[in-house]
């Protein structure tokens, strides 16, 4: 019961406390502005080069937009404890650690879903992209799975941020990396094998592919393998992230490395 509340209520409060871009202006310019211009950028570069139609870029970038929340918001929502000096008081409570850690991901996933929806809407309004209403629920399900998986990777970056200063550099690197290696703007088979391998080990790759198929009319049943892989990858990152968080916590007591107050 207490753990459920730490997960739900605690998760929401800590999201409001630690996610830097939650204020309306920064939210609009960063959280929504970046994916929007990114979407237009790649769609027009695509038109100019004549490689793919708008739909390819809209679906790719609108699904990848979940990384704005999943990577950046998630990194901040864990790593900013260090910035505020609140890690010691939080870790001195008897709160259930798994609920404490994973609870922070729930608002992030919902936010990622919203950002993706805005990006899809922009694609519908501004570009040559259409989506029959009947396909929306299946597509939303695919985006939800992908957003959750991406958030798993974000958790790992957040954990690292408890030890490494300025972890947002790493989040930037991963965010821009996904634009290239996850099939968002460049089909995977164009890439050299090692980059394909990197892409397949990251969240987004399988989710983006599933989203393209569902947007193209395929049912969820046809992409269940892709979704299972995507979910598995996300869960693996989240698990490593939690293990790392616990290691840092225990090691912090020994080496006095976690307290910065």
């Amino acid at each position, binding site marked *: 019961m*207490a753990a459920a*509340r*730490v997960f739900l*209520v*605690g998760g929401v*409060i*800590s999201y*409001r*406390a*630690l996610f830097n871009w*939650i204020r309306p202006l920064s939210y609009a310019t960063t959280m929504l502005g970046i994916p929007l211009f990114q979407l237009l950028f790649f769609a027009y570069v695509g038109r100019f080069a004549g490689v793919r139609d708008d739909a390819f870029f809209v679906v790719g970038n609108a699904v990848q937009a979940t990384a704005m929340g999943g990577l950046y918001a998630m990194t901040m929502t864990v790593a900013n404890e260090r910035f*505020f*000096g*609140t890690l*010691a*008081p*939080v*870790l*001195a*409570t*008897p*709160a259930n650690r798994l609920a*404490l850690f994973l609870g922070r991901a729930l608002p992030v996933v919902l936010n990622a879903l919203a950002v993706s929806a805005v990006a899809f809407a922009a694609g519908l309004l501004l570009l040559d992209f259409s989506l029959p209403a009947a396909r929306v629920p299946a597509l939303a399900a695919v985006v939800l799975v992908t957003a959750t998986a991406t958030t798993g990777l974000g958790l790992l970056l957040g954990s690292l941020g408890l030890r490494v200063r300025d972890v947002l550099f790493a989040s930037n690197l991963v965010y821009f990396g996904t634009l290239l290696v996850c099939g968002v703007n460049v089909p995977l088979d164009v890439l050299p094998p090692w980059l394909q391998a990197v892409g397949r080990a990251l969240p987004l790759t399988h989710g983006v592919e599933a989203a393209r198929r569902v947007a193209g009319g395929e049912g969820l049943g046809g992409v269940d393998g892709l979704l299972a892989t995507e979910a598995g990858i996300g869960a693996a990152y989240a698990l490593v992230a939690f293990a790392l968080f616990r290691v840092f916590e225990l090691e912090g*007591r*020994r*080496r*006095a490395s976690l*307290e910065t*107050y």
Partner: protein
Amino acid sequence: MAVIEAEELRRTYRTTTGALRRRTLDVEAVRGVTFAVERGELYGLLGPNGAGKTTIIKVLVTLLLPTAGSARVLGHDVVRDVREVRRRVGFVFGGERGLYERLSGLDNLRYFAELYGVPAREQGRRIAELLDLVGLSGRERERVEGYSRGMRQRLHIARGLMHDPEVLFLDEPTLGLDPVGARELRQTVAGLTEAGKTLLLTTHYMFEADALCDRIAVLSRGRIVAEGTPRALKERVGGGRVIEVEVFGIGEERVDALRAVGGVRSVAVEERGQVQALVVRTDAGVEVTPALLARLAGTTIGRVSYREPTLEDAYVALVEE
């Protein structure tokens, strides 16, 4: 059974310096500290900066492992029974940091109410009580980033009491507060002991320890150099007297000459604006004033006064020993 027990507690920090040729350096912050605090007591750890006060508290609230020795709070080992200890102790570390700046004071408290597992239906009443106790009622909906130093400190205290802990650790609670704020805070602290809590407080203000604490341990370089009631500590260096002589411009050799007078234990020079005050601690029952004044011949002398030794005198003597 004592509520807080520390036995031969030690903590060493390992630090590394140098980017290329890394050298490790061990800092012995706490070197074998033993003490016990009884239920309902307000116990003070008094010592200068770097004496090891914060380190001891961190070990007792399970944020740090001791390097050696052991400690128990309410019978629970601070290394093995971590959750049991965490449920029952609260702590307040002084400072501006450690709060969620963008949240209101209220939301800061709500968050910790969840983390400490305060049942939802009790939270509202509990938080209202605490806001009242620390005098933040009416300001709780403002963001913490706009709080003054004193308000932050009071919010820290409210948070430390969130789960109604039996034992509270306060690390330099009045550090950086203005005199009025510090006095109010000391009243709050005094009120907590009346409510039956056991408190351990650190401070480097002698008068604060004197005013608040039932017993004091004087800490110097990681060791307890004296322990007892404020009164007993005064008596340890007591029996003596303090003579303060105001002078206008005095050289070091003259001060040394005063130190050589029989019956004089120590002489300190305090700058007080235009004048200097010689604080001369003497043995009891000896009359040294004529000898002192004789050696000050030729110097302009102001007021001469006598007083009983304060805890500060005791403290200075102990820490300098």
